[in-house]
């Protein structure tokens, strides 16, 4: 019999302390209420256990290989500048005109701009820290109060205590933002990057928003602890596109939640491409009667990338509609987990919920798990789900190759086609092109 030696590895927290919270707050000369909120969040953080694979939501998602030594040290600005961000990630979204661009490098604001058009409309789009001073009432009313409270989970609490940067988007009542806005979180060094996105749309407002998080592959483990809050008022319309392309040693832990009001529409599209490890909670709360929420994802882990997308579509009011379409391609030894829940509260009659996760396995060593779920407490609803995993069939490749396409190109065409239903939901052509280019690089890469 062989002796098996087990390295006892714990689900250890990053080596951060209350002193770090105080330092972060002081460094930016924050208002008292915010400092207070941070310290309360820190207390909640300390009271919460680190999630382990004993927890249902984390059962397939083990992060014990993270090196908190590098990934748990707060990332401080390293002299990174706007120009460090790759040009394609800071190009205007439509033609030459820019609605607004807010960009951070290693947590430091390097670009904080809103165009004249949107400013004249009364749209606020800026660095969240600045907003906490200049628009304190708005920020205070919405930050961590409605969508992702600090006690949501260990990482949400950590974020609430220690976030170093964030972007704030506010569209006043009845305003249809004439141009899309764009924000970028970029990292140049390993460390803990802690960022927030806060979007507030008042009644009848509408806007398109692209948010990007990315880094090159870093020299050691890095982490992104993120919170995203999308608050869509009655009759408002938000189209939110979130692209993630972290370097191959970044671990992301994020909580993202939208609250959707009466007759409001949320169209949420995400592209998940990078990172070493991803655990993202993405949730839609359909709070008002007639609310509509759609969540779409395109994900493509390769190599040994691991992605866990954990979704909820919560129907909290009658006549609400949710639609989820996730499409993933997996290559090499990549792994993906999708667990999705549709919930309908007792009063949520005439709700219509749908979810589908479809994955394409491109290598024998890749694996995807789909765990759909329904929790229906209303009796007059229609909630359905679908999940399918497949490969590129030989017949399909043969057919395409018989027209002269080399194998690699035939595969690319099939994968592109597979992603098209999600890509078609992205309103920015250059973003679609970038994603397709990324898919191509991944497919052709060894």
């Amino acid at each position, binding site marked *: 019999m062989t002796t098996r030696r087990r390295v006892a590895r714990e689900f250890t927290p990053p080596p951060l302390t209350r002193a770090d919270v105080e330092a972060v707050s002081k460094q930016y000369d924050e208002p008292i209420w915010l400092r207070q909120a941070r310290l309360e969040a820190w207390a909640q953080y300390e009271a919460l256990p680190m999630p382990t694979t004993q927890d249902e939501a984390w059962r397939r998602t083990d992060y014990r290989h993270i090196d908190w030594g590098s990934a748990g040290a707060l990332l401080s600005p390293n002299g990174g500048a706007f120009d460090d961000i790759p040009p394609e990630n800071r190009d205007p979204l439509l033609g030459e005109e820019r609605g607004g661009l807010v960009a951070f490098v290693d947590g430091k604001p390097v670009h904080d701009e809103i165009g004249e058009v949107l400013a004249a409309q009364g749209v606020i789009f800026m660095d969240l820290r600045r907003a906490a001073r200049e628009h304190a009432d708005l920020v205070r009313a919405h930050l961590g109060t409605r969508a992702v409270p600090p006690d949501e989970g260990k990482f949400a609490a950590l974020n609430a205590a220690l976030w170093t940067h964030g972007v704030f988007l506010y569209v006043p009542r009845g305003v249809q933002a004439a141009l899309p806005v764009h924000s970028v979180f970029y990292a140049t060094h390993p460390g803990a990057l802690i960022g927030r996105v806060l979007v507030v749309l008042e009644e009848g407002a509408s806007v398109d928003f692209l948010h990007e998080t990315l880094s090159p592959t870093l020299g050691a483990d890095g982490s992104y602890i993120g919170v995203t809050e999308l608050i869509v008022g009655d009759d408002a319309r938000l189209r939110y596109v979130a692209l993630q392309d972290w370097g191959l040693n970044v671990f992301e832990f994020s909580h993202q939640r939208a609250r959707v009001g009466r007759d409001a529409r949320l169209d949420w599209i995400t592209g998940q491409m990078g990172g070493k490890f991803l655990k993202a909670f993405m949730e839609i709360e359909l709070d008002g009667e007639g609310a509509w929420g759609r969540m779409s994802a395109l994900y493509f882990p390769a190599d040994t990338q691991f992605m866990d997308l954990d979704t909820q579509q919560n129907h909290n009011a009658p006549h609400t509609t949710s639609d989820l379409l996730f499409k993933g391609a997996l290559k090499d030894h990549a792994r993906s987990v999708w667990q999705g829940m549709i919930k309908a509260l007792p009063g949520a009659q005439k709700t219509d919920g749908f979810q589908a996760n479809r994955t394409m396995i491109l290598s024998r060593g890749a694996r995807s798990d789909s765990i759909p779920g329904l929790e229906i407490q209303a009796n007059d609803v229609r909630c359905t789900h679908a999940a399918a995993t497949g490969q590129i*069939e*030989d*017949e*399909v490749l*043969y*057919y*395409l*190759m*018989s*027209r*002269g*396409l*080399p*194998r690699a*190109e*035939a595969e690319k*065409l*099939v994968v*592109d*086609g*597979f*992603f*098209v*239903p999600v890509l078609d939901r992205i309103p920015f052509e250059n973003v679609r092109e970038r994603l397709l280019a990324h898919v191509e690089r991944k497919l052709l890469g060894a």
Partner: protein
Amino acid sequence: MSATLEIRNLHVSVEGKPILRGVNLTVRQGEIHALMGPNGSGKSTLSNTVMGHPAYEVTEGEILFDGVDIVGLEPDERSRLGLFLAFQYPVAIPGVTVANFLRHAINARRKAENPEDKGISIPEFRKLMMEKMETLRMDRSFAGRYLNDGFSGGEKKRAEILQMAVLEPKIAIMDETDSGLDIDALRIVAEGALTLHERIEMGILIITHYQRILNYIRPQVVHIMMDGRIVETGGPELVEHLEEHGYDWLREKQSNGA
């Protein structure tokens, strides 16, 4: 120089089971041949083997294209040499439009000839595609639909001929292109093939069960396949003989060892 497809003593197995047992057949550019035979005789196995389907294993014999054995080549290489197969059951490619696919197919050819090629320009491509679609009386909206996805049987066959018209092969195999087509669609598809035959001397090997399509695309040579061999080769009169007498006389002839 005109191309020749020459099949010599071809033996093919699928999952270890022999299907073709010594096929000999030569089609030259400019010629039209028909290949007939009962179900299961090996006609589709032959067409897929010529095109390079990975499930068909050549255990003996050769397939020569312009004198070069293509048995070891991938389907795309065969295609770029000038071979084409109009599929009996075209595969659906969701998310890939007819136009996008055709452009990729054209560019793959151009790139193989010249690695520096930047691909066909969009206006040039559109003109070409619209022209071909018009001759096949296809609605413009067809170009924007996903390839074979939700197509009717007739639309699939027309899409096959559209691909053939765009790629302009030297030799095309049409595998039961006539099945599932009404008489109008059949005429359009047949005219499409004939135009290529006349204009660029495309050689045609047409696999069919019925005389119908052969009234439009008149073969010079008719082959009959049974049990994985070509058992009879003759002129167009053979088609009528089959229509009248079926295959029984050939089976008898076979069992008599003639």
